[in-house]
């Protein structure tokens, strides 16, 4: 990042290659639109380019990038709430091409509280440490720890019915997709 701040275009290209996919994944898991996820990923890098002169190496580049990404995501959500009709302002529709298991996980995650969900996703998908999550979300590390534990326990309980059905299907030797459907309705 410092190399890029000094004017090295190659440094930015390396930064872009390294973080493009993780940032896209960050937005893709939180938004329903592939295009918007792609756009916001680009917006994140554009914000980095624009703010290069003000950058100070106080934290990891990763933390810096996810900090920008979270702000863009919050702005995007505010915009959606303003623009969308009241009926559609709730949960986003599911992805059509999602696999069953991933679908279950996603549904379970959506049942978590917003704060706990964000911490869990930053930990599991973005692989941020407790301290990095605390810095990005501007909350104490102990809060991160306790909320992460609660969210994992809650997610486990949400996934349990599916686990039982899934295990039963595995035991019967068939991948019965129909068995998942009632549980989905419960969610």
């Amino acid at each position, binding site marked *: 990042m410092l190399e890029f701040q000094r*004017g090295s275009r190659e440094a930015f290209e390396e930064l872009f290659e390294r973080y493009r996919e993780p940032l896209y994944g960050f937005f*893709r898991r939180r938004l329903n639109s592939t295009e918007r996820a792609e756009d916001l990923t680009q917006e994140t890098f554009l914000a980095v380019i*624009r703010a290069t002169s003000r950058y100070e190496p106080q934290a990891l580049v990763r933390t810096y990038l996810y900090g920008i990404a979270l702000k863009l995501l919050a702005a995007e959500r505010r915009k959606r709430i303003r623009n969308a009709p009241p009926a559609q302002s709730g949960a986003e529709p599911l992805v059509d091409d*999602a696999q069953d298991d991933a679908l279950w996980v996603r549904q379970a995650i959506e049942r978590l509280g917003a704060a706990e969900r964000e911490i869990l996703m930053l930990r*599991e998908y973005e692989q941020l440490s407790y301290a990095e999550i605390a810095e990005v979300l501007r909350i104490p590390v102990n809060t991160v720890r306790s909320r992460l534990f609660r969210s*994992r326990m809650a997610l486990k309980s949400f996934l349990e019915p599916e686990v039982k059905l899934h295990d039963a299907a595995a035991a019967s030797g068939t991948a019965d997709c129909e068995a998942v459907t009632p549980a989905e309705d419960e969610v």
Partner: protein
Amino acid sequence: MQRNCHPIEREDIMAYLDGELTAGPAAAAAAHLEGCQECLRLAADLQSVSQRMITWQVASPASGVIPRIAAALDDRERVREKASTLGRRAWRDILGMRRWSPYVISFASIGLVVLLVSMTRLSLYREAPHPMDISSGPRSQVQSQAPTRSSGIDKLSSDNYVLDFGNRATVGGVAQKIGDSLEINGSMIVRTAQVILTTTEFDKDRARIEEILKRHRGYVGELSVSNPSGTGRTLNATLRVPADQLESTMAELRKLGRVASESQTGEEVTQQYVDLEARLANARNTEKRLTDLLRQSTGKLADVLSVELEIGRVRGEIERMEAERKSLANRVDFATLNVVLTEDYRAQLQMMPPSTTTRFRNAAVEGFSTMVEGIVSVVLFLISYGPSLLLWGALLFFPVRVVWRRLRRDPA
């Protein structure tokens, strides 16, 4: 899971699995996990949740160069080039020793040329006649070339430079005349002289100093007169006279009285002036470039404001350097002459001794004063030490009386 059954918290198990514990607690957690089935189950649950979450994967974004980002990078590079054109980035790079830009090399070249010119002038100055002779020698020669005035620094010949002092502050119209005609052969000298005189006609000489000053188109920088008892009066004056009038002014001042001491100094400021001119020219160029940039700018408001801020800073520097240049030119144009005029002290002789009556009266007054002084001293002593004396007297009175009586009895 009860808290009192387990030496570590459940959250610690999670932190251990996430690699967030330090060495000590991590070892404790590992040891506990080996023997506790309940905590092992918790660890397995937590790992299971993580593994389940990993199943939610997203497809990779389309690869390739993104035009928006490429365009933003190009814009940024253009802005950086503009900034270095303004000199800001170049100066930052110089200070940070980050990279060498063509502008840095240009500045270094200008500095080298100025240094070489200064060194050449310095060597010429050393070979030239004494600075004090400049008014009678080279200057008269140069004054004949006065109509060849030009702006800035022009090379007259291989050895001579003409310095234009242009718009200098005027004092009684004199400075303008000198500024128009003064072209120094090579060197600019700030001249300072001091004369200490002793005179018997203090009042007349003071008036004469003012006349001399008026005749030579000078002015008083500072003047003070002191009149202490027991010695003669002293006049301290700082006079500013045109540099070419310094010798004649001093010659006339010497006639006012006996010269106790005299000194002259000359300070070479050519290099300083040339440096100042060069820096001023650079600053003006920078200001012009910034103004052009501002005129042509179609960028953001923030960019415009930053350019305006830079223009303000450069303008401030130009004004400061112009003031410095004027001050320097004034010091060269007008020599500083310190004059100390001391009056010969004549002690007054007392011809008549005091009368007898006066002496009696003085003696009576002194006697009365002495008596009053004595009484006051005794009273002050008693006030200061009386209480302590009384205390000790009271304490010692009876023991002393007993001892005294025994001593008197024993012989009997």
